[in-house]
């Protein structure tokens, strides 16, 4: 790489957006941006188990919560003289989704495509996810119960 277009945190951010994106949204974007490129599969999609560990209320010791199915793959693409590799990890066994994530990750690292993809793919997908989350939060907030304790007169 000649210069750094993005930091590790940037890449983590767009990978998070991609893995959380709904299938339909990814499929739509993939049709527009991915189909034109030829990918070399360094690692074909493979499905396995990952152990999820947790801590209650982010305190105390970690315990094994359970195993989740994860599908992963690695795609490599060359645009001009730049070759980049993208990784795709998704929950479940949807190989096509893992492929799309890896393909977008590889393309997003390409200097010539980064800005366009960031604006056309990541921003809308991330906005859509934020909207869904906000909606969900609003729905939950309506059922929220707050407890008030009246202060006794003596201490007031």
């Amino acid at each position: 790489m000649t210069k750094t277009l993005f930091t590790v945190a940037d890449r983590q951010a767009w990978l998070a957006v991609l893995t959380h994106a709904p299938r339909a949204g990814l499929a739509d974007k993939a049709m527009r941006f991915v189909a034109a490129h030829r990918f070399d599969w360094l690692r074909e999609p493979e499905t396995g188990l990952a152990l999820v560990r947790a801590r209650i209320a982010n305190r105390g010791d970690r315990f094994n919560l359970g195993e989740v199915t994860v599908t992963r793959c690695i795609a490599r693409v060359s645009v001009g003289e730049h070759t980049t590799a993208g990784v795709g990890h998704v929950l479940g066994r949807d190989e096509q989704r893992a492929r799309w994530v890896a393909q977008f990750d590889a393309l997003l690292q390409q200097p010539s495509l980064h800005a366009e993809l960031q604006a056309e793919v990541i921003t809308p997908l991330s906005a859509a996810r934020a909207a869904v989350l906000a909606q969900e939060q609003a729905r939950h907030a309506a059922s929220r119960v707050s407890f008030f304790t009246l202060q006794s007169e003596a201490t007031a």
Partner: protein
Amino acid sequence: MSLSLSNADLLASMPRGFADATHDAQAVFRNVLDALSRPGRLQTMQSSDGLQPPAPLSRGVTALLLTLLDTETSLHLDDSLASEAAWMYARFHTGVQQALLEQADFVATRAADAALDGLRLGSDEAPQQGVTLIVEAPSLATERHASLRLAGPGIEHEQRMGLCGLSLAFWQQRIAMQRLFPRGVDLLLVCGSQLIGVPRSTLITLENY
């Protein structure tokens, strides 16, 4: 999943493994099986087009490593074959663990540097813990003047083979090891896509010396 995001450049330049991981590995495994069940007889490994060996490993050795190694095995690469690229490749494609010579399940070396000293031979209770030595040989052709005569399981009458670039001292040591059976070392000699297996059960005698 051990590959962190900062390894992006490394991944971009990572040489490819088998084009079709399952079937290519099965085909090479079959060749290894044939080689070990017919000691001393030349086998031709099915060449996989997509395979890109990392420097300084050869295609043949790489195909064997991709076939035989997984996360539960350990490998020692001799200094002549060890490189950062080779290790990254082996770890990425197979998940193998790096081990010292004395502890490794598999050892890969060049013929000129091959030695049997310090290799794990297994025990009488657990002979399967004996090491498999993969040797990158300059040639597997049978030499006319000097050869080894092989006998034992898998050989009906007798089988001859050349020294395959290994030193006379190496073969003498291998012969001396025969009395330790079932402890011992299984040999896989590779040159290009050719393969010869010499399991520990094979009895070797030197000829014309």
